[in-house]
C-alpha cells in the first residue's frame, strides 16, 4: 500500500510541477507578454505536427518526430566521430605524462570554444553545410569523453596493473583486458556528457546551416512568425535530450554495478 502511494507520488508531483509552469505560462501570455502564444494556442497550431509526427508535406513542413529523426542522425554522426577520436586521445593522455604536458593546455584552450565559432570554420574547411555541422558537433562534444577517459585510465588501480605484470600480459592485452574494462565506467560518464553537448549543439548547427531538422525548423518558423512552433521545438528538444540522458544513465549504472 505504501509502495503504491509512493509510486503515485512519483508521478503526481512532477505532473503538478509541470501544471504550475503551464499555468504561469498561460497567465503570462494572457497578461503581460502579448507575443508569447498561450498553451492552448500552441497546441492548436502544433497539433498537426504532433499528431502526424512522421508526415512529410514539404522540405520544411514535416512532422516533429521526422525532424527530430533528421537531427538525431546528424547528432549521431558527429557523436560517433567524437567518441572515435576522443576515447583514444583520452587513453593517450591518461597513459603518458609527456603527452599530457604537451597537449593538455591546448585541449583546455579548445574546450570552451562555442559551436557558433566552430561552424564557420567547418564551412570554410568543407564548403558544405552538412559536414560542417557534423564537424561542429564532433569538435564540441569530444572533450568530456577525452577528459573522462584520461581520468579513468589514470585511475586504473596499480593492483590491477601488477596482476597484468605478474601474468606478463602483452601491452595490447593489458590495454584491452585490464585498462579498458577498469576505465570503462569513467569513459561512460564522458560518453553521457558528450551526448548531452552534441544534442545541445545541433540546434545552433541547424540554425546556421538551414538544414532540415528540429533546429532548422525552429529558425524557419521564427522567420515565418509562427511562434507556437518555437515552443513546440523547444519542448521537443528538451524531451529528446532528457530521454537520451536517461538512456545513457541506465547504461552507465549497469556498468558501475558490474565493477
Amino acid at each position: 500500500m505504501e509502495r503504491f502511494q509512493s509510486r503515485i507520488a512519483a508521478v503526481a508531483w512532477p505532473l503538478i510541477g509541470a501544471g504550475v509552469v503551464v499555468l504561469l505560462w498561460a497567465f503570462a501570455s494572457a497578461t503581460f507578454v502579448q507575443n508569447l502564444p498561450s498553451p492552448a494556442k500552441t497546441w492548436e497550431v502544433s497539433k498537426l505536427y504532433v499528431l502526424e509526427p512522421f508526415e512529410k508535406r514539404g522540405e520544411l513542413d514535416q512532422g516533429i518526430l521526422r525532424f527530430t529523426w533528421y537531427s538525431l542522425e546528424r547528432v549521431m554522426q558527429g557523436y560517433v566521430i567524437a567518441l572515435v577520436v576522443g576515447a583514444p586521445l583520452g587513453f593517450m593522455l591518461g597513459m603518458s605524462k609527456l603527452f599530457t604536458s604537451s597537449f593538455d593546455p591546448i585541449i583546455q584552450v579548445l574546450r570552451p570554444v562555442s559551436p557558433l565559432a566552430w561552424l564557420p570554420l567547418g564551412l570554410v574547411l568543407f564548403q558544405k553545410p552538412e559536414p560542417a555541422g557534423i564537424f561542429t558537433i564532433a569538435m564540441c562534444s569530444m572533450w568530456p569523453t577525452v577528459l573522462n577517459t584520461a581520468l579513468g585510465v589514470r585511475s586504473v588501480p596499480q593492483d590491477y596493473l601488477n596482476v597484468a605484470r605478474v601474468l606478463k600480459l602483452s601491452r595490447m592485452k593489458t590495454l584491452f583486458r585490464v585498462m579498458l574494462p577498469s576505465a570503462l565506467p569513467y569513459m561512460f560518464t564522458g560518453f553521457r556528457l558528450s551526448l548531452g553537448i552534441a544534442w545541445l549543439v545541433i540546434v545552433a548547427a541547424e540554425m546556421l546551416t538551414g538544414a532540415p531538422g528540429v533546429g532548422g525548423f525552429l529558425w524557419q518558423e521564427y522567420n515565418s512568425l509562427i511562434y507556437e512552433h518555437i515552443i513546440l521545438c523547444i519542448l521537443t528538444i528538451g524531451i529528446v535530450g532528457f530521454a537520451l540522458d536517461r538512456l545513457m544513465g541506465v547504461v552507465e549504472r549497469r556498468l558501475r554495478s558490474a565493477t
Partner: protein
Amino acid sequence: MSDASPFMLELENVSKSHGTTAVLSQVSLKVEPGEFVAIVGFSGAGKTTLMSLLTGLERPDTGRALFKGEPVTGPGPERGVVFQNYSLLPWLTAYGNVLLAVEQVFPSFSAEKKQEHTERYLAMVGLSPARDKRPAELSGGMRQRVAVARALAAEPEVLLMDEPLSALDALTRATLQDEIERIGRTAGKTIVLVTNDVDEAILLADRIVPLSAGPEATLGPSTTVEIARPRDRRALNHDAHFREIRRSVTEYLLSTKSARKKDMGRSREALAGPMLEVST
C-alpha cells in the same frame, strides 16, 4: 647455467628506499626449493617492499634479487603472487579471473583443457559453486581463495603470499590457514609467506625469518619450525617447541621495536594473536 644455484630465491645484501625513506637495509635471504618460509614483521616494516623485490615488481637499489641463481629482472608467472588485497579484476567472475591466468600461462592448451584446468583449481579452493560470481558478490575469504586459485593455476615454481589473510576475520583466517597448510604440504611448492601474525607463521612455515622494525628494516636470525605435519592448531597450544619459537620470535621483534622507542604495548597485542594467552 641455471642449475648452478642450489637456492630457489635469494636476496643478497639488498637495500631499498622509497623517496627519502630507507625501507630495507642489507637484507639477505636464501630460500631452498620446496621450502615454506614465513617472514614475520610489524605492519609498515617493509614486508610488502620485500615481497615486491622477490616478485620483481620493484628492483633493489643495491644488492641483488635472484631466482634460481639468475637476477630477477621483472615479474613473471613462474613466481606466482597472492596479493594482500586480492587484486581480483572486478569485472570478471571467479572463473574469469582464474581463466585469465590460465590462458596467459598455457596458451597452447585447447579451450576444453583451459576450462578443465581452471575448474580444477577453483575446486581445489572449494569455490566451484561460486565460479560465476563476481568479486563484489564474494566474501573476503572467498575472494582470497580466488586469488590463491589464480596464483596456483599458473603452476608457478614459487608462490609468494603477501599478508594473504590479514584482512579476514579470525574464523575465516583459521580455515584458510589450514588450506594453505594443506596446499603447501601436498603441492610441494616453494612458498614465501609474509605475515604480521607469529602464530600463523609457526602453523604454516618450515622456517621463520623475522623482519626488524623499520625504517632500515633487516632480517633477523631464522628459526626452524620442527613440528610434524599435518599440524593441528589445537595441539599446538600445548606444544613446548611452539611456545619457545613464539617467545623467541616475538621477543626479537619487540627488541627491534623498543630500540626504535615505539609504542610497545600495542605491538605486543598485535603480534600475539587472539589464539593464545602470552605465557611468560
